[in-house]
Structure formats: C-alpha cells, structure tokens
C-alpha cells in the first residue's frame, strides 16, 4: 500500500529487504515510522509555536534571533491576560462556555428526537418530512446568515445568548446523522418494551437513549467543538464586546492595531485548552462516533 503523500515517497528508504505483509505494503517498518513521524512533526509545530509564544515576552517573540524556547518562562502572562482591563477575555471565555454547552444540549435533544421519529415512527408523510429536512443540507447555513441576521435582529436578539444559541439548534445534518444511527439500532429492544406497554416516548427515554449513550457522547463532542469554534454567526450577532465569544474576541485582537503578542497567544492557548481536554478524555467516543456517523461507505 504505497500512498500518494510526498512524505512517504521521500522518506521510504531503499530497504534491502522490504517487508511485505498481507496488506501488501512495500514500505519497511522503519520507513513507515519515519514517514508517520515526519508528518506528525509538521502537525505539532503550530502547537509548539503557540505554547512558546504564549510563554515568552514580546521582545523574545519578535527578536531577530530565533529562540526555540523562552529563556525565562513567563507564567505571569496568564495572570496578565485575565486582569487586563482593555481585553474582556474572561467574559468571552464564559460566553463561549455558556453558548457551547447550551448549544450542545439543545441540539442533542431536538435533533435526536426528530431523527428517531424519522427513522422509526411509522407515519404516512414521514418521507416528505425527511426530504424537507434533507433539502436544508443543500443550503449551507453560512449562506443564510444575511436573512438570519435580519430575522434575529427583528426579534431583538442581537447581543443575547438567545440570539447566539437558538438559531443554531436546528441542524438538518445532525438530525440526519441521528436518523442514520437509529436506523441501525436493534429494533427488538424497542419491540420488547412496546410489548411491555411502553409508548414511543417511554421506549425512547428508557430503552433507546440509555442504550445509545456512546453515540450521544460522540455527537455531543462534535457538536460542542463546532459550537465552541463557530465564528461567523457569533461575529454577526455579537456586536457589543460583552457578548463576544472567544473566537470573536481573538479575531478582534488580531485585527487591532496595537498588537500585544504574548497576550494574543496566551488567549489563543486558552481558547484551545478546553477542547484539548475534551479531546483527551472523550477521544474514544469521538473517533467511534465519527466513524459510525453513516458517512462511511
């Protein structure tokens, strides 16, 4: 299995005795690890730069001579970031936390219920409803930001949590993924519950949800990441600095004329940190969930 990436062909050494395993690789084990390691190195460089800059002084970041590590690690940058009056960074972190959490809870509730109904509850016009949902996938939400902004501002929701959260709850894509998942959920379990007299509602909450926690966890992780990282909508809605999310705040520092490098990088580090934790702890579900979202062949 040779690959198309340039790293591979470059670093695959002319091995004297290429090992050929069942899957037909010609690359030696060493070559394989060199290639993967090289790629991994490039993937990690930005993280290294982020941490290095966040813990340096501005003079070290902008100095003529490249410093691989700060000579004197500036932990005080953390304190400076959160006490700096001109940059309401703590507030924007809090906004992001609230928005991403409520967004996740809402999306999971609303979309999973709909996805379940579309997959399981027999109803004459279910197909029509399904196509109506599928149709929205064709229109990227980003394209509708102009009319959505118009709608939300006429509701008076600009600069509010409502405006940041509610319009994003109705994701056709998440609903679709839940439907795909529930189609594969073993029917027998629900049928047993129904025989025992549970209605759809009871069967859903007592049987289906408790047995689908893995998938819910995966979708929660993905939704949280998307909610935390979304930028265009919060940028449009968050006009007052008090309602900025982390991403909007970062963007504003970046385009600001007076650039304080170490604070910007420290802020960026704090914007990524929560998700890195989410990643480390929930990665198993995340990977499984993405793998079983129904996108696979």
């Amino acid at each position: 299995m040779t690959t198309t990436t340039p790293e591979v062909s470059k670093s695959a050494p002319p091995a004297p005795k290429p090992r050929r395993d069942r899957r037909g690789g010609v690359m030696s084990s060493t070559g394989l690890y060199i290639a993967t390691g090289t790629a991994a190195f490039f993937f990690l460089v930005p993280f290294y730069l982020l941490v290095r800059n966040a813990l340096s002084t501005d003079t070290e970041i902008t100095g003529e001579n490249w410093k691989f590590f700060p000579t004197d690690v500036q932990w005080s940058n953390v304190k400076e970031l959160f006490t700096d009056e001109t940059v309401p960074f703590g507030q924007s972190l809090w906004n992001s936390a609230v928005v991403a959490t409520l967004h996740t809870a809402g999306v999971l509730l609303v979309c999973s219920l709909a996805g379940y109904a579309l997959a399981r509850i027999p109803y004459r016009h279910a197909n029509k409803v399904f196509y109506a949902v599928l149709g929205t996938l064709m229109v990227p939400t980003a394209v509708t930001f102009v009319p959505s902004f118009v709608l939300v501002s006429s509701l008076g929701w600009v600069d509010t949590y409502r405006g940041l959260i509610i319009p994003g709850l109705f994701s056709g894509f998440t609903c679709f993924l839940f439907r795909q998942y529930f189609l594969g959920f073993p029917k027998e379990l629900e049928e047993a519950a129904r025989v025992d007299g549970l209605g759809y509602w009871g069967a859903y909450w007592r049987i289906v949800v408790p047995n689908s926690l893995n998938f819910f966890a995966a979708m929660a992780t993905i939704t949280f990441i998307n909610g935390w990282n979304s930028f265009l909508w919060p940028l449009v809605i968050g006009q007052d600095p008090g309602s900025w999310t982390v991403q909007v705040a970062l963007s504003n520092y970046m385009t600001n004329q007076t650039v304080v490098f170490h604070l910007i990088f420290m802020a960026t580090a704090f914007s990524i940190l929560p998700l890195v934790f989410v990643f480390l702890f929930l990665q198993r579900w995340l990977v499984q969930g993405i793998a079983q979202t129904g996108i696979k062949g």
Partner: protein
Amino acid sequence: MSTTTTRDLASPAPAKASPARPRRGLRGSPTFNFWLFCGPFLIGLAIFVYAPILWSIWLSFFEARFTVTPDKFVGFENYTYMLTNDDFVGSLVTFTVFAAFIVPTTWALSLGLALLVNRLRFMRAFFRSVFFLPTACSYVAAALIWKMSIFSGVRFGLMNTILAWFGIDNIAWLVDPNPPWYWVVIVSARLWLQSGFYMILFLAALQNIPGELYEAAAIDGAKPGWQTFRHITLPQLRATSTAVILLLLIAAYQAFDEFFNLLSKTTWGRPPLVELYYKALGESQDYGSGSAGAVILTVLICAVTLLQGKFLGFGRGEESK
C-alpha cells in the same frame, strides 16, 4: 444494558391496561408521536431555516439598504448587479481556485495519513491523536498562529527565519497578492485543520475492507503496493471518497473564518461569504444585493452538489462499486 430494570419498572401498570399490543388513543398513535418527536425540530427549522431563506429570496427582488422591510421592487436588478459586479464574480473565482487547491490536497493528505496510521503496529493511537488534534482548533486560532507566527511577513516569522537560513529574503506572505503567496498560507492552514477529521473517515473505511480481498489478490498475482492499492483499496474506498469530496466541497463553499482573519481589510482574495458579509453587513448594509448574492450562491451549491451526485454516485454507496 438496562432492559431488565426497565421491564420491572414498566410492567405493572400497563400490563392490566391492555395485554393486546396496539394501544388505542392519542398517546399511542404513531402520528401523534411523530409530531411530538419532530415538532420542536420542525418548528425551529421553519422559523430559523426556511423563513430566512424565503425572506432572503423576497429581499433579493427589492432595493433594501439599511432596511429589511423595503417597498421598492426592482425585479432582477440586484441579480444583474451582483452578476456583473467584479467583486462578487471575483469572489466566485477565488472560491474556484481555492476549491481546486484544497479539495484534492486534503483528499490526498487525509487518505495518505489514514494509510500510514492503518499500517502502524505500535503507537497507532498516539499518531492518530496527533493528526486528529488540530480538529480541536478553530479557524480563528489557526489563522492567528499562521498570521502572527509561521507566516508573519517580518523577520521573526518562522518561515522567513527558515528562508533566511538559506539566504532568501523576507516574503510578505499576506499583504501582497503579487505573487499570490497568500494561497500557501490559506491552503496550509486549512489542510492542517481538516485533514485529521477526514483521515478518521478513511481509517474507518479501510478497516471495513475485508482482508480476504487482499489474499485473493495476492493469489491472483497482484503485486503488493501500487497494484493492490489501485485495484483493491481505492475501489473499496469509493463510497467514502465520494462522501469526503462532497463534504470538502461544501466546507470550501463555507470558507469564511480564515480568509476573514488572515486577509482582513484586503480587497482581493475574498471568497463569496466574505464578500457577502461586507456587502450586507458592512458600510452599505445592502441587504437586497446581499440576498441576491446568497441566492445565487445557494443555487450554485445545489447545482454542483446534484451534478457531483450524478457523476460520482453519491448516496448509491454499496451498489455503485
């Protein structure tokens, strides 16, 4: 599995109500339940997805500056204005160039990474995590690192530092469209951010390929390496590849964050969404033209999606192999 406990909890009451299964009345009816489950989602969809789209189409036929309740009907004027507007047409060109770069490179890189990781025996989880980790970063954060550290146009930028070791002069990566070095910055940032995600999709697909296929191929004399990859792996990945390409295209259409942050305040290198953002929410607050642009863009996206589905057979998956 909580089946037993649930059964204990649930059995006493309804058992005497009706031993026969189909329960009568509103609560048991599928139609009622369908709307109970779907109701909140569909109402939200109607208000926050369909209504804005319809409003957008309506607005696009009016002259609407600084107002969302316009009264001056202008027919297709907004459309002709947008379609003859150099900035908007230019943004479509920018998108086309961007997609032509980013879709194949991400496809190749994520497939390559998946093939590598799939063959690892040790530290597979570690490398998978490394490649996947950038998915946690936002485009804003990546744009910031790219703009202020790696591709900073001044001396202390990483790339310029490295170039200096080879005696090459500083390159102003992001402030000068001639030569268009900014593509390097934008494409590399997005590659870094999204390849890991698609790698996971390819990994899942690779692990679903039955090993017997490779054994059969070996018996038939296929040489390991390029031949098996070409004749077994690639065809087996067809459905995933199609889905990945489609998702990549849609993601490319939505490009906004990194362009907005990396190329702030430039008039060139704007993809459609950035162009629409400035048109509709910038100084002029021109909702009419902005909406017309959004409608044009939506029609284009639908057309491309449908065409791609026709040619590559998206959705037919298994049968189309």
